Each structure stands twice: as structure tokens, then as C-alpha cells.
């Protein structure tokens, strides 16, 4: 991670923004309660808090997407009120939202300049392509302006979104969990950009659940809890423990695993031999009962693709799958579920959830057969079952009937987990299970996973966060460019050796040009 630019903030540093007594209610949810926030010129100000604390809502109010019920915003010493996103943009406040907001069928350049492509009625793509190329060059991005978004990886698409926000040359830049989908090098690139912007006097509001990033980048940090302002700390005087305590009201201690908890003779529940597809090269592995098998690698290493082959979501060219020793023919995800394999997608919005349905409907989606008789769904039983999980994994929702779209990101993820727990799957594949989830919820999900393996379930965990892999896995498989490059017992694994094998071919590739 980049060097921290010492930026000595004094009390005299100019305030650019003050949000005072902001209150916001949605149906049934009091999302912000008299919340306060203050931003100075040229600082990176981290905003942290658990899932559902109201961070995104506060920023949406700042940028004119939501209207506050009460409270005022003072910007550059003047009281302002933005009624639309455009008004905030024009005033010099731009935002990268937590969820991607790009038009997939348009090119990168068309996305970046949408709404301001030309003064008149006629557009000329050559002009915006040229401007986009300059912008990308200055940000060191290797993306063609004419590339359609749908052909970019999530990480690249995210970088386009960030470039778009930067292109407004705003005074205030809001980044709502920008690194969730980025690779390590992309993240570093982003941090360099942020340092440059800060040096130019741009104020940055940075939302992230990754405290190590905040430690590196932030000048100050504001903590929110349950829609309320808890406090602001100067980063160089603060410790992470202090911040965590403010976030969750208690300290969380996480000990890394040092040795496998699985008996060497535990039965093999899942085995694959030579799984191959255009993006996966001959991957074989086995998973034992009660084991957590970690999959490490850079974004795009083919880990998700392996999972998709196992559950039959993509066609495999070659390769066999054995469940509990018997060869099975998995052709579609339904087959996988019937063999007791559940998959939690990394992109829950696209594959994991029906955003317009309620918590109950989503949680029960995979198990309706078990809760219906002659085609009629026993709604009461469904609600009871869902409620049990709302309690046990602490899903923050006003009721089991709340529409998923209105839940915060982390709570949406918990609903997906609940879905497979209710289905009683023996083998669970967690693909980036804690992406966008706060530490409180994270440690609950870890606890949940440990509970599950103790009760004899087996877990495959794909994660780009090494600390979590090292803390959770019994064994780790490292992948690079579609191939398995190393298999490590947890006792011999550390981040250095994992990174070495995760970038193995990368180095080789560069040598060959």
C-alpha cells in the first residue's frame, strides 16, 4: 500500500462542509438520527460504521439523491440544498456509489461523459474518446475509451466509475466502498490518485470496511452507529481497536488459525478431477468433511469460475466431480443443490438475490419445496423459519417482509447465507462472503462458518482478503490465471508464500512481454 502522505491538519484548516442534525426516515426505518459530519479542505476523511449504520444514506443526502427530513448542509460557508444529483455535481461534489452505476451497453467514454457529452444537441464520440484517453492516461488506467462496460471486469468497471467521478474536478469526492471489487494493484493505483487529489486540495470522503486501508489513507475518521454520529478521531492519534470499539461498542479479537481442525482421515465429501473450461485449467482438489478449504488468488484468477463449474452454472469441457465418493453428473445448479451443494455468489445483486422480493421470499427461495404442500406455500412456516435466522445471524431488518433492496449491503449478504442454511446444504461455497461487510458482521459470519463445520458441514471459501483466509481455512489452494499453482496446509501458509504463487504466471507472462 502507498506511503501515507503526511498531511498535518490544524484546527484552522478550512471547513468545506458541515452536515448538521441530518434526519432521515424510510418506511419503517429511522436511517439517520440527527447525524453530524464535518469535512475540511484537502483531507481524506474516512467514514466507518457497521452495515446499516447509515453511511451511504448520509452520502446520498449530501449528493442530492435523497432529501433529508430535517437538518442542514453548509458547503463553503453557505447553506445549500441539492434537489438532484446534477445540482450537487454542478456545485462540485461528486460521488462513486457503493453499487456500480454504469450503463453496460455504452462505452467507457460514453459513460464518463453521459449528461455532458456536448454543449449542443449533436454528439461527437471522437471528442469524448480523446478526453477519456487523456483522463485514463493521467490516472494510469489501461482501459480503452471505446470499450463497452459489459466487456470489462468488475474491477475495471469500478475504475471507470472512479475516473468518471474524478473527471468532474470536484472539490469534494465521495468514495463509497470503492475497493470492494478492485485488485491489489488497482487499489494502489486508486490510493495514488487519492494522494494526488488531496495534495491539490480536494477533500475526500472515504467509506470502507477495510480498516487497514483507512489506517493508511485517512487523515481523520468519523464513526457512525445506528444512524447516529459517534465521534471523529485524528487517525495518527487513534488505534484500530479504538475505532472498532466505537463502531460496535465492544472490542473484537480475532486469532488466526495455526493448524488444521480437520482429522486427516475425515471422509472426502467433494472431489474434482481435472476441471477444465476456457478459463479454468485442469483444477483438481478435494474437500473433507468439516473442513474449510480456502481459495486464494488475485481477482480474475479463475476461482469463481471453478465454483461455477462445480455447481454446473457453466459448461465444463472436461473433468469429473465426485460427491461423497460417488461420481455425479452436475449439469445445472439445480443438480448441485440436489447433491447438497450451495453457492453464495460474489455478485449477490446479480446472482444471489431477487432484489424486489421480501427477506422471507429470498431466504426461502431454494427451499420452497420443503415448505409447500401440493403447490401451496405455507407462508406462516416460511416466516417463522426466516425469523429464526434473522435472530440467529442478526439480520438487521424491520421485519421479515421488508423488501431486500432496502437492506444495507451486509444485511443482504446475510440473507443469502440464510437461504443456504435453510436449504440445509452440506457443502457450501462462499464466494467473497464478507465483501462489503463490516467487522462486527464479519466476525459473526466467521463464527457461523465455524459452527457449520463443527456440525459436520464443509465449506469452500473464496476470498481476496488474505487475513480472513488465514484465519478461517484449514487448507488453502492458490490459483493463478485459471490454474492451481499451490496447495498449502494452514500450518505452512502465510501471506508471502500465497502472494508468490498467486502471481506466479504473472511474472512469467511479463517476461515474455
Amino acid at each position, binding site marked *: 500500500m502507498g506511503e501515507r502522505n503526511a498531511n498535518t491538519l490544524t484546527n484552522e484548516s478550512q471547513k468545506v462542509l458541515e452536515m448538521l442534525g441530518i434526519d432521515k426516515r424510510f418506511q419503517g426505518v429511522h436511517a439517520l438520527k440527527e447525524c453530524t459530519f464535518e469535512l475540511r479542505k484537502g483531507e481524506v476523511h474516512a467514514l466507518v460504521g457497521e452495515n446499516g449504520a447509515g453511511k451511504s444514506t448520509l452520502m446520498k443526502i449530501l449528493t442530492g*439523491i435523497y432529501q433529508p427530513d430535517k437538518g442542514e448542509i453548509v458547503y463553503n460557508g453557505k447553506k445549500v440544498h441539492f434537489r438532484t444529483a446534477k445540482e450537487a455535481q454542478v456545485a462540485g461534489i461528486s460521488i462513486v456509489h457503493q453499487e456500480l452505476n454504469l450503463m453496460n451497453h*455504452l462505452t467507457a467514454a460514453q459513460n464518463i461523459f453521459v449528461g455532458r457529452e456536448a454543449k449542443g444537441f449533436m*454528439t461527437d464520440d471522437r471528442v469524448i474518446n480523446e478526453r477519456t484517453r487523456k483522463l485514463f492516461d493521467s490516472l494510469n488506467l489501461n482501459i480503452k475509451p471505446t470499450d463497452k462496460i459489459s*466487456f470489462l471486469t468488475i474491477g475495471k468497471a469500478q475504475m471507470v466509475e472512479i475516473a468518471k467521478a474524478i473527471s468532474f474536478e470536484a472539490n469534494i469526492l465521495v468514495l463509497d466502498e470503492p475497493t470492494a471489487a478492485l485488485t491489489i494493484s488497482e487499489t494502489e493505483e486508486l490510493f495514488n490518485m487519492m494522494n494526488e487529489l488531496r495534495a491539490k486540495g480536494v477533500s475526500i470522503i472515504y467509506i470502507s470496511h477495510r480498516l487497514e486501508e483507512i489506517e493508511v489513507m485517512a487523515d481523520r475518521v468519523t464513526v457512525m452507529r445506528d444512524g447516529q454520529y459517534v465521534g471523529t478521531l485524528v487517525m495518527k492519534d487513534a488505534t484500530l481497536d479504538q475505532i472498532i470499539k466505537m463502531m460496535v461498542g465492544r472490542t473484537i479479537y480475532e486469532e488466526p488459525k495455526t493448524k488444521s481442525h480437520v482429522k486427516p482421515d475425515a471422509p472426502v465429501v467433494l472431489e474434482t478431477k481435472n476441471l477444465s473450461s476456457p478459463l479454468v485449467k485442469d483444477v483438481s482438489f478435494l474437500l473433507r468433511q468439516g473442513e474449510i478449504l480456502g481459495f486464494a488468488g488475485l481477482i480474475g484468477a479463475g476461482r469463481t469460475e471453478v465454483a461455477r463449474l462445480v455447481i454446473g452454472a457453466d459448461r465444463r469441457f472436461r473433468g469429473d466431480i465426485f460427491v461423497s465418493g460417488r461420481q455425479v453428473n452436475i449439469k445445472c445448479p439445480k443438480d448441485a443443490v440436489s447433491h447438497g451443494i450451495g453457492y453464495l455468489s460474489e455478485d449477490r445483486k446479480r446472482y444471489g438475490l431477487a432484489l424486489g422480493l421480501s427477506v422471507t421470499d429470498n431466504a426461502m427461495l431454494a427451499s420452497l419445496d420443503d415448505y409447500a404442500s401440493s403447490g401451496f406455500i405455507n407462508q406462516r412456516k416460511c416466516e417463522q423459519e426466516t425469523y429464526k435466522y434473522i435472530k440467529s445471524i442478526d439480520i438487521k431488518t424491520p421485519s421479515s417482509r421488508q423488501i431486500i433492496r432496502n437492506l444495507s449491503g451486509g444485511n443482504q449478504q446475510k440473507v443469502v447465507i440464510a437461504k443456504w442454511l435453510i436449504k440445509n446444504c452440506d457443502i457450501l461455497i462462499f464466494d467473497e462472503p464478507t465483501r462489503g461487510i463490516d467487522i462486527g458482521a464479519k466476525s459473526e459470519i466467521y463464527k457461523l462458518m465455524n459452527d457449520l463445520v463443527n456440525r459436520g458441514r464443509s465449506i469452500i471459501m473464496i476470498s481476496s482478503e488474505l487475513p480472513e483466509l488465514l484465519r478461517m481455512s484449514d487448507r488453502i489452494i492458490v490459483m493463478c490465471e*485459471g490454474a492451481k499453482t499451490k496447495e498449502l496446509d494452514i500450518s505452512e501458509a502465510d501471506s508471502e508464500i500465497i502472494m508468490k504463487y498467486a502471481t506466479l504466471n504473472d511474472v512469467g*507472462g511479463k517476461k515474455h512481454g
Partner: protein
Amino acid sequence: MVNGEKSGVLEAIRRSGLQKLLALGALLIMCTFFSIFGQNFFSHSAFMNILDASYYIGFMAIGQTFVIITGGIDLSVGTVMMSGALIGGVAYNVWHWPIAFCLVVIVIVATIFGLINGLLIAKLHLPPFIVTLGTQFISLGFGSIVAEVQTQQYPTVNQADGWFKTAFYRTQGGFPMGAVFLLLFFIAAYILLTRTKLGRYTYAIGSNEEAARISGINIDKWKVIVYVLSGFSAGLAGILYAATYTTIVPQTGNGLELYAIAAVVIGGTSLAGGVGSLVGSLIGVFIMTVLKDGLMSMNMQSQWQIFFTGVVVILAVLLDIYRSKKAAQVKN
């Protein structure tokens, strides 16, 4: 790397617009097929017949393309076209207005229906399917009410105002003026879709409406404009229809919208929004008219034409799905 090369090839295919090429190829194959197996298909009169039938569907399909790219649908174009033509006919026959004014009436009536569609959809957030289904019936009824269920007759070539037919349909020498107008309108629409903000926002709305809104685009305004454009195109289609067929019968026109939609879909425009092209739609129009005339030349009557139109639509959609799957593979 093997992977890189492979995606390179697919990328190239994707960029060259496979669907359009395939549609064009299909059109050429059909023409060849009918020339060989049909009677008199490869003749001047057959060619003129194909053109005649393509005018009004072509205009409707052009407007419809914009609507479908936004992720919407306009089910009212067929009846709106007829209702405009009917009321224009009333203006001519009953109110005795000059023919030029009557033609303007056709366009105005149709554009107003487009405006109503747009306002209901954009401002009241009603689903396009429902709104335009409603205006389909309303325009169907409205035309008949104004015409008092009388068939309206436009002037023929030899009558006093016959110039309108020579101007919009065929010259005395038989030159297809309708094709000229269709081409001119096509070019204008093409520029609108590819070179202007209207076009850009049409794609943006269909691709991700929320993202477009957050980017500060006035979604409501542009949606209204798109439906107005569809109504306007239906109005022009009405003029061409009147010029080509002379007689306008009340309570007709429903079902014609399906030809326009089919042409757009055959041309590779996705009903899910965000993708599509006018060139494709135009090819789609001709695929359908060629099919119709070709089957006729093989002595297969209208029931067969309808039947095969359906087959072509489904084939086109299958092709589209196959293509987007390939595209998705490139991405991964």
C-alpha cells in the same frame, strides 16, 4: 496466451456487428431462394410490391426502435397510424380541407397520441406495455368515432388532389417516391440515434435507467421525446399508407404494430433495452416484406406468410441469445 487470442477473434466478430451481417445474409439468401423457386419473384413488379409493403411498416419500425432501445414498447403505433389517416380523411372528405392540411392533421393526431403515451409513462411511471395497450384501443375507437364509422377515401392519381399520391407514393413514371421518403427519414433517424444526445440517452436509459438518472439526466423528458418520436413516425407512416392504399377502413390497424415490433426484433434490438440498431430494423422490415412476397410467388397464401413471419421472429431471437452468450464468454 491461448486465451487472449481466442477472445481476440470473438471480440473482432462482436465489434463488426455479427447480428447485422447475419440478418443481411439471411435477407440475401431469402431473395436468392425465392428467385429460384418462386414464380416471377425476380421482377420489377415484385420488387415494387415489396417496396410498397415496406413503407408504413418501415416508418413505424424506426420509431419503435427508439422505444425498444429504452427498454419500453409501443403497442399503439398500428392503430395510431390508422386513426391519424382516418381523421385526415375526414378532414379531406367531410371538412373539405386542402389535402396538404389533411396530411399535417395525420401527423399531428399521431404525435399527440405519442405525447399522451410519453406523459403517462414518464410522469406517472406507468408500465409502457399497459399504457400503449390502452392507447391502442383508445386510438382505434377515437378514429372511428371521428369518422362516424365511415370508410375514408383519399384522392386517386387522376383526381384533383392526386399530386399527393405522385409525391408520396409513385411518380407518373412509376418511380417509388415512398422509398425515397423512407430513406430520408431513415437517415435522419440514424443521425438522431447515433450522433445526438437523444440517441445517447435512448441507449443510456435502456441500459441502466437508475445510473442515467444518477448521472443527472432528465429521464422523464427524454422518455417523453422518444414516445413522441414514435407517434410522429406512426403519423408519417399514416401518410404513406394513405398514399399507397387510398382507402382507410375504420377500426383497423390493430396487429400492424406487431409487424413493426417483429422487424425491430429481427434486426437485433433487444427487448431488454440498451442494444439495437436502425440498420438492423430496416433489414428486419425487408426480411418480412420479402418473405411475404416470396411466399406469394410460391403460391402460398397469407396464412403461410403469417406462419413463417412467426418462425423468423423466433429464429432471430434465438440467434440474438446465442450471440449474447458468446459475448458473455468473451467477458469472462
